[in-house]
């Protein structure tokens, strides 16, 4: 009787065992890499827009305050996306014939939303939390969380991209240890937390010397605070009435 298994079967069997042991890990690792990659999270991927609006030009080169356009950021859950009228407050005076701004002018004239070349409406949404997450801008700004902390180095973006992943684990980094992230303007501690937040961008504009923490904040980089900074942070948490334990309660963000 001929042998059922040829000698190569040994190799196949060994390989199968190895594959059985490693494949699940490879699949899981692969899956998680894909889900964390920019292809999925869109972090750092500029999204095309009907008008190529540059935060770099407006917020850095011209130094316009964030709140000029995002008007409700200190008052409401949402920061607000500026209406056509806000654009036209300047652009009725300057760059009045720029072809790039044609959709804006048309929107203002006709009273219809800004349109793409293919006649579809609206801006591509860059930053979005899932629908069961209820994020409130105003309370974050009012406790002293910087815009760039979540949105990355917006003042460097020619076309806007998403600065951070917005994963829940990423939110929890701060909700677990707010002392590492609250911002204090050492030179102007008398300002309200929200004024300190916006003062950072002004200081950057005016070329004031910035600390390492401030620098990395502006650049949207992760920063490991020193022990001294953490101690200060804990004081800030107390001073500003941040209920640190409560921040990980589910219904703080989900409801």
């Amino acid at each position, binding site marked *: 009787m001929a042998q059922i298994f040829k000698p190569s079967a040994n190799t196949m069997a060994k390989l199968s065992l190895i594959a059985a042991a490693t494949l699940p890990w490879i699949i899981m690792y692969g899956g998680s890499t894909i889900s964390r990659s920019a292809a999925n999270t869109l972090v750092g991927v500029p999204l095309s827009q009907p008008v190529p609006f540059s935060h770099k030009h407006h917020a850095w080169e011209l130094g316009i305050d964030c709140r000029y356009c995002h008007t409700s950021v200190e008052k409401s859950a949402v920061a607000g996306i*500026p*209406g056509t009228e806000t654009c036209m407050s300047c652009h009725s005076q300057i760059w009045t014939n720029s072809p790039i701004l044609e959709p804006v002018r048309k929107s203002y004239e006709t009273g219809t939303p800004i349109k793409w070349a293919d006649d579809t409406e609206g801006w591509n949404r860059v930053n979005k939390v899932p629908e069961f997450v209820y994020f409130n801008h105003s309370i974050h700004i009012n406790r002293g969380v910087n815009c760039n902390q979540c949105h990355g180095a917006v003042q460097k973006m020619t076309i806007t991209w998403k600065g951070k992943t917005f994963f829940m684990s990423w939110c929890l980094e701060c909700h677990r240890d707010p002392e590492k992230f609250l911002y204090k303007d050492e030179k102007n501690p008398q300002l309200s937390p929200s004024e300190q937040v916006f003062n950072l961008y002004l200081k950057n504009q005016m070329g004031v010397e910035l600390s390492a923490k401030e620098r990395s904040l502006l650049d949207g980089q992760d920063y490991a605070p020193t022990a001294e900074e953490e101690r200060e942070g804990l004081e800030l948490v107390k001073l500003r009435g941040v209920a640190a334990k409560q921040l990980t309660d589910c219904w703080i963000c*989900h*409801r």
Partner: protein
Amino acid sequence: MSLEARETNDTTLDLETVRQRLSEKGGREYWRSLEEVAETEEFQKWIDDEFPNRASLIGIDRRDFLKYMGASVLLAGLGGCRFLPQERVIPYIKAPEDRTFGIPSYFATAAVFGGYATGLLAKSFEGRPIKLEGNPDHPASMGAIDIFSQCSLLNLYDPDRSQNAIHEDMITTWEEFFKAVRPTIEGHRKTGGVGLRILSETTTSPSFGDQIAGLLKQFPSAQWHQFEPTSRDNVKAAAVSAFGAPLNPVYHFEKAKVIFSLDSDFLTAMPGSLRYARDFATGRTIEHQGASMNRLYALDCVPSVTAANADHRLPVKASEVEGIARAVAARLGVSAPGEPSKAIPERWLSALVADLTASRGASIVLAGDHMPAAVHTLAHAMNAALGNIGSAVTFTDPVEVKPTIHIDSFKKLVADMQAGQVETLLVLGSNPAYNAPADVDFANAVKRVKLAIHMGAYNDETGALCHWHLPEAHFLEAWGDARAYDGTASIIQPLIAPLFSGRSYAEMLSELFDKPKHGYDIVRDYWRGHGIDDNAWQEVLNGGLVPNSALPQKAPTPNIAAYSPSAVSPGLEVNFRPDPTVWDGRFANNGWLQECPKPLTTVTWQNTVQISPATASRLGLTKGDHVELSAQGRKVEGAVFVVPGQADDVLGLHLGYGRTRGGQVAGIAGKMDSRVALTVVGEDVGGFDAYRLQSSTAPWFFGGVQVHKTGGRDNIAAAQTHNSMEGRDILRMGTLAEYAKNPSLKPEGHEAPESSLYPEKVWDTEGHYQWAMTIDLSLCIGCNACVMACVAENNIPVVGKTQVLNGREMHWIRVDRYYKVSQNHESKDITDLDNDNASRIKDAFDPARIESAFQPVPCMHCENAPCEPVCPVAATVHSHEGLNQMVYNRCVGTRYCSNNCPYKVRRFNFLNYTDNQTQFSGTDNGMIQDRRRLLKMVNNPDVTVRGRGVMEKCTYCVQRINHARIEAKKEGRRLGDGEVVTACQQACPTHAIVFGDLTDANSQVNGKRKNDRSYGLLTDLNTKPRTTYMGRLTNPNPELEKI
């Protein structure tokens, strides 16, 4: 899993067994349904399993189970893998300056119901009305809101609402309509309006009245008729006979110590009932022992919310009420023609009369709107004899623009139509083709009208018979005004431009008869002419009412005109009442109201033939049996529902069902008409059109009805057996005298354990608010306002009748209704029972012995929540503020939590109800999408719309808590007491629900929890509920308590 409703009605329920068991039971036994007393198989099913009728896993062997499980895990994992579509955002072109993005605005407006206004505050989110709340400054609302006003919000987004002008079944435009009809109007102008008739519902709108008056001046021969089935004709007729003018009675319950209701449902079904409920509750608010409380005596024909709250309830036939009124009046020194009735026991009568005379000037006698004018006249005379007129009862000039006896006005119109005298008929909102009494044949008469125009919110039964149909704007879409029960004028302020092409009646009339005028100008011009300048106008709009516009109070002297006393109806007496949830049928297409359990029966999605247990037993009927009722050649067929406490020999029928052109939702509750383009997809049909038995001469009750069992059966979706807590110490109730002896009202044998195995401190509460709620059962009247407010606030889906039959209603707060057989009541003895003690046993089916009580049950937010440790994925956990959090995005749907919840307050979303609501069904996909888009607009953006397979429950309105906490933090302060108001608390007309922070020593909720009546449900389980109750107190007359 089968989606079909199984046969859930128990045919084995033997009423005689129930009678015997109830008769033997002790005094302190509360029960919710007859099935529970009989311990039927059906009831046992609901006890054993929270969701009976599920498909079972038994039958699958272990290997298959593992296979399915493996596949499920894999598919569940893969299901999460997808790239989300790119979303677009569209900002304003020109942002409104007075609003902040993301922060809702409130506008004062008013809802009109039966002609009368209730002041509201409407919440608008980015221009979209999403919630209605009571206007605290409005006398008819005082910040509370009734179920009808609350749910009228859903009508705004109803896809079945009339969207276009229709001419002979073809869609057309308003311009075409005016072009086509104007020559006819010009013709009428030449003849002074001969043959021109207008038919409207009750109206109290000053500007509209002014407009009609002007119109009638232009067309002197034209006539204005009014018809609405629930029109208070009897109230007006009685006022005319007693005072010579149709004066409007206004009651002041806060001043009344003794109230005698002649089958009046003043707590839920009368103009001003929200205010009346508040004032009534004021007189029943007991903060400590020894405080006094008002006393309500009520005659009751078809069980009503008011009678259920009475201290003494006497179930009688409606036709006996007049005789009883005469008997009481005679004792009070009022001479009235006719024989006093013997239906009132002497003890009851003398106790009542003694109480009333002891509270001269501080008592109220009032009759139900459906009682004959003679009863109202007697009530006025009794109030006069007791010196109440001018104190607890006052009168104002009529609130209605033109007080009319509607049925006479309507019958004259129909007679004229039949005689061919009506050339042009303009129907404004009225729907007589559906809701006229069966003996007035509007449908045939309208065929003789040359030009019939119907304007209404729905292209309904009447719209189908008219040549033209025009869409009416919703009250949140058009300007208007109306008066409240006391005459206070409110401005109806729109929040949104008409979604479809609707207009207000006023706008239509001005364009048709005069020149086009915007609704705003019509209202503004009227009030400018009545002393409201531009500054005052801003205040009027801001406050929602015209200051000091309440009509002056009068104290006229009634005179009892001679009337011919009517006889007690022989045999079975049929009683008609507006439905507690769909009213006269106008809310038939409102899913929220259809699914709202009717206060006493807990029936949803249909009306029934209500019969008392004794009568049902005698006629051999049981729940669900189809019967044919016939009288004077008219007949209807409906399903029987046995209602303990209803008067014997009375058939209670609610109007408003059996719509033929009501829309998709109404179509589920009724039967569809082939003329409607919409079809109903796979739903059960319930309810019948009771108007077909109604007669114009005796619209509310008559005797001599024949009942014939047809052999058919119906599944009645009644929620009363669902979510039972199995007769533990759930409801505490006692009289004032019992309260004096035992302040906690605690029955014996339910001691809370002294020690606990749970650790004492479960979480760190340091510095955090600790939320808690108290519900005062003394004040709860069972009106369901809390349930509907919760539905509107928390995006609670409508599940449909089939799902209710399976116990899957999604309401986060339910109102349990309990019955008790009173032992302290003199009653017929049963002698025909085969029992040694027969002579001592009183008949438990004597309806007068049935007492009822209501108990709202939201989530208890237990400190030691039993749901939490059993969740395998930690989807329900505690917050630092003491909230039992439910995290939808973690929940995998094991339902262990619900199983372990002793209070049965958790709800499981079996079938993705929000996206599959019956309103979404349609004939093609595009249509379904359109309907879905429209109905989505009603959702509260601050609350997650839950999906399939997820458990959900009351959150204590955490979105409101979070909002208030964040705002307070931004201002650097702690929240004050009363800053967080839950939706149920806000809607409650009697302030029965109080919510607040336990760490605030002075908070109202702390005070209530320290009250001696305060108790928690099932505290012997050591759950430490955060929702606590205060025992229900009644104030029976000690004279009647003695046996």
